[in-house]
Each structure stands twice: as structure tokens, then as C-alpha cells.
């Protein structure tokens, strides 16, 4: 990794330069919220965004995608190409960069997912430092820092960005498209000061001491029933989660019934039919069992396999849940035995 300083007013040069080679996707305003969307004009990019409604996972694992098209008459696959244009995701916060690495563990696991891989390999990541919002709790998991998983990371140190350049592609793009200068000791000092101010700005301080053991010990706790009573079973938490990767697959035929497509869509463990199987059985029929499953998977099951919890503290679920259920409150309930 090497480092450069970029003047803020020169950043549009980099974005415009990237646009000549890639589709550039970045945070833009939608009402009083933000979404990741293709950028035409660097001025549309809202680098002051707090978070986005959907996380960047949609650019690797779309909410709905055609896996293949097939001919009904002879069951032949006629098209299984993956659409993966060269793309730059610009302005990802550390939580989201970390979330992609948690997704990689799954999609690049024993069975490599060719759809995810094609997009992942064709996408560069430009990270951006942030300011904690009232829903952020990435500090609980150490996902408030991103050390790898990006090509370029821009830390805002006032009138300049302290740019960490991780990959050869990132270095080439910076060289090609924007004027930079070498870093000095003073710049690293400004970087450290920014980091300290960032760490001090968190409102949420979640105590995660012995959480895996605690959650294991609380398997029969009444808090799950209480959370089940509140849960709207709407699945919004899963959709907005940067680390939820569950999907459903179904086939549908075109109107003439001669051609079909196999479709993959985002699924949620909070939907009743998620754990329904043949013969009308359902392993998680109640909302209480489903919300418990969600937390056990994220805080225990994934951890036991990959030594990381399946949460990056982005706070999107806290914003999306109209019933007020979120990891901060659930962890609190595990500790106190009371659902607030």
C-alpha cells in the first residue's frame, strides 16, 4: 500500500477520469435519504451521505437476477451469461467494505458463485471516511476501519484527502486521472487526528463481551417471544443488510410457455415460508423463532465458521425496522433480560 494526498477540489477530476473507463456508482440523494446509483455528473455525488437505503451488495448480488434462460421442449440452457460491466463503486464507508469481505466468505466458499464472482472481479472499490450517525455501531465489531478490500480509500482530513492506495489498478487510476502529492509526517498526523475524532464521535457503545456465549446461554429466554410479538415479519432488515446473502430460486415461463428463465431473488429468514419444506412442515413457524434464528446466525453460526460476526454495524436495519428492533437493542436485551 502507498499513500498520496489529493486536494478536495481535484476529486471531480478523478471521478470524471474513472467515468471514461468504468461505470461509476456512488451515493446520490433520494428524498432526504441516499442510494448508490450510477453517476453522470461528479456534482451529483453526495460524499457527505450518512448511509444508503440499500447497501452496495446489490451491485454484486442483485435483488433479482436471471441465472439462465432455458428452452422448455428439450430442457436446454440457452443463455447463462453474467452481465458484469467494468464498474467502480465510489464512496463506500468502512462498514460496507468490510461487509463485502463477509459476503466473499460465502460466495467464494466451497461453491464459487459465478454471478457474484463476475461482478466482484469487474468492480473496483473506492472507500471514503465517514462520520458516525446516530444508528452507527461499527465500533462494536472493529468494522469502523477498513484495512483491505478496497483499491483506493479516501480519508477526509480537511481540505485534502489522505488517499490509501491498495491495488495496482487503484495506483494506475490515481496516476492517470488526478494530481496528487507525496504524504508528509504532518499528513499522517492529520490522518491520526481525524481517526481519533471519528472514534470519539460514536453515540453507540455496545458491550460485546462474551456475546457468543451469552447468546448461546439465552436460547430459551422469553426475550425472543417478546421480540417476536413486535416483529412485523416484513423482511426489511434482511433487504437492507449488507451481509444478508440468502436467496430464493424459482423458474418462470415466458407467456408463450416455450422458453423459461431461472430467477434468483433476495430472500429473508423473517419470511414465514423461508423454512417451510414439503408436506407443510415449517422449522420456524413463529416470528419469535425466526427473529431468534436471525440473531443466532449472525452472532453465533457465522462466527463459528468464519471467526467474524455477520454484522458490520452499519445501522441500516435500525433505520428500516418500524417496530424498533435492532442489534443494539437485542444485545442489550440479552444482557439485561428486558426488551426495551
Amino acid at each position, binding site marked *: 500500500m502507498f499513500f498520496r494526498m489529493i486536494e478536495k477540489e481535484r476529486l471531480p477530476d478523478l471521478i470524471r477520469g474513472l467515468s471514461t473507463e468504468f461505470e461509476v456508482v456512488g451515493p446520490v440523494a433520494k428524498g432526504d435519504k441516499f442510494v448508490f446509483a450510477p453517476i453522470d455528473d461528479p456534482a451529483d455525488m453526495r460524499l457527505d451521505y450518512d448511509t444508503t437505503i*440499500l447497501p452496495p451488495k446489490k451491485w454484486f448480488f442483485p435483488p*433479482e437476477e436471471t441465472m439462465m434462460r432455458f428452452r422448455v421442449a428439450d430442457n436446454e440452457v440457452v443463455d447463462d451469461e453474467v452481465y458484469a460491466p467494468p464498474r467502480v463503486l465510489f464512496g463506500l464507508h468502512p462498514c460496507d467494505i468490510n461487509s463485502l469481505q463477509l459476503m466473499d466468505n460465502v460466495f467464494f466458499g466451497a461453491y464459487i458463485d459465478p454471478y457474484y464472482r463476475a461482478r466482484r472481479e469487474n468492480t473496483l472499490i473506492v472507500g471514503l471516511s465517514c462520520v458516525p450517525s446516530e444508528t452507527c455501531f461499527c465500533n462494536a465489531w472493529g468494522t469502523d476501519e477498513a484495512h483491505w478490500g478496497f483499491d483506493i480509500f479516501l480519508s477526509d482530513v480537511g481540505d485534502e484527502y489522505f488517499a490509501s492506495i491498495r491495488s495496482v489498478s487503484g495506483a494506475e487510476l490515481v496516476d492517470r486521472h488526478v494530481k496528487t502529492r507525496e504524504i508528509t509526517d504532518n499528513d499522517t498526523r492529520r490522518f491520526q487526528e481525524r481517526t481519533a475524532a471519528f472514534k470519539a464521535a460514536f453515540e453507540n457503545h455496545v458491550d460485546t463481551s462474551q456475546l457468543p456465549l451469552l447468546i448461546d446461554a439465552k436460547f430459551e429466554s422469553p426475550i425472543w417471544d417478546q421480540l417476536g*410479538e413486535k416483529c*412485523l*415479519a416484513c*423482511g426489511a432488515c434482511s433487504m437492507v443488510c449488507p451481509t444478508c446473502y440468502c436467496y430464493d430460486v424459482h423458474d418462470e415461463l415466458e*407467456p*408463450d410457455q416455450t422458453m423459461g428463465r431461472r430467477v434468483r431473488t433476495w430472500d429473508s429468514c423473517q419470511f414465514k415460508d423461508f423454512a417451510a419444506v414439503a408436506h407443510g412442515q415449517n422449522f420456524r413457524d413463529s416470528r419469535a423463532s425466526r427473529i431468534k434464528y436471525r440473531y443466532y446466525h449472525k452472532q453465533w453460526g457465522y462466527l463459528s465458521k468464519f471467526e467474524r460476526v455477520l454484522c458490520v454495524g452499519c445501522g441500516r436495519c435500525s433505520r*428500516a425496522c418500524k*417496530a424498533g428492533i435492532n442489534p443494539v437493542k437485542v444485545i442489550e436485551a440479552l444482557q439485561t433480560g428486558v426488551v426495551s
Partner: protein
Amino acid sequence: MAPRVVVLSLASDFGCQVQITNTEDHLLTILGLIELSYWQLASSGHMPDEYDVAIVEGAVTTDEHAHLLRDVRGKAAVVIAIGACATIGGIPALAGSGSLADRYATVYGDGVIVPAVRRAPAPVDSVIHVDYHVPGCPIDQSEFLRVLSRVLLGLVDHTPDMTMCGSCKIAENVCFFDSGVGCLGLVTRAGCGAKCPSLGRPCTGCRGIAPDANVVSALEVFERAGGGADALRSALDVYNTASEVHV
């Protein structure tokens, strides 16, 4: 042999039949897969005596409707209910929110007697078993085509049972509750891709209350932001009066 299909209407504005007509790109393709024996909106003929599939639009509002449905069920191997009126009672069911006599008095003046054959409006499956449902007001053409495909393949009905919020998040809509506006997406059956919120309007519940909805918790959400319990009740009245959910 292509299945013989009839399309008929009870109490409704025929909007869902119009939607079938509007599937212009695929209409001829569909007609090539079935034998259309009767289409109330588009033909001047009469219902044949034999058919395989009955597509029913509209709510049951009279004894005659109920008789007709029982006759249809006796003949058709498959019954498909289309639209809010047929699947959940829809807007016609508003007439049943109070006593029918009071409604008649309000609309036609005092002293008008409710004909004996009138009933409180109700969905088709209040009278007969329905095999497939296409919810919505009006129906979505592509959903109708998907259901028709399932009928032709002999697959079971697969109407989504979850609520709308998940698909509304996928559409990246700004949630109405965040600005204190109530939205029935919280309890309404998914499957339309959150069309109305995507166009800037709160969900009005035309697809009916989702079987998996948590109405009690939704009521609390409405009380915190979104106009309170009365707002939820009156919003539900528009399409869901006939549903047996009390809030």
C-alpha cells in the same frame, strides 16, 4: 386439447378485464394457448355449458352471484379469482361496513327497501373454493400471466404471503413512516413490487392483508407515527372491509 376458458364478472368496474385486454404484447400468444369460450367484457355471446377454467372478477353482492358461482364451481376444474373485489371484497365491500339498510338509505334516500337478494359484499372464496388468486386493484398484467402459466402447468397457487416492506426496500423508496405518514405496506400482501410507494403514494392495501402480517404490531407503529389507530382502520376500510381482521 387447449383448456376452455370463461371470463366473467360480478360486482366490479371491469377494470381487471380491461387489464387482460391491456396485455396487448402477449394477448394473442395467450389466446393461442387456450380456447376462449366466453369473455363477458369482449364478447356478446353467452356462457357455454362446459368449460375448464373460470376467471372471475368482482365481489359477490347478490344471491344470484352466489348461485352463479356454485354453478361455475360445479363445471370448472379451475377457478381463478382476479382483482381486489374477487379476492378480498375490495371497494364494493365498503357497503358492508355498516348495515346494508343504512347504506341504502344514505345512497337512495329514506324508505328505500334493500332488495331481499342483496348481501353484504364478499370475496369469491366466501362462496366457493378458489384455486388461484391474482390480487390487486387492478391486477398486474405480468402477475396475471405468471398465474396463468402456473394454471397451464398445473402448479399450485403461489401468492406471496409476506408484507410489502421488503420489496419496498428493494425499490429503495424513502419510508413514509419516517415523515409521519401512514402506509399500509406494513400489513399488505407483497407481490406488486411496491408500485404505489415507488410512485410517491403510500400503499392503500389493494392486495389485501398479508397472511403473515403482524397487525397488532403495525397498529403500534401507526400510533407512534402515521396518524394513529383510526388512520390504520380507515385506510384498511378502502379495500379490506370484508377481511376478518379487527384493529
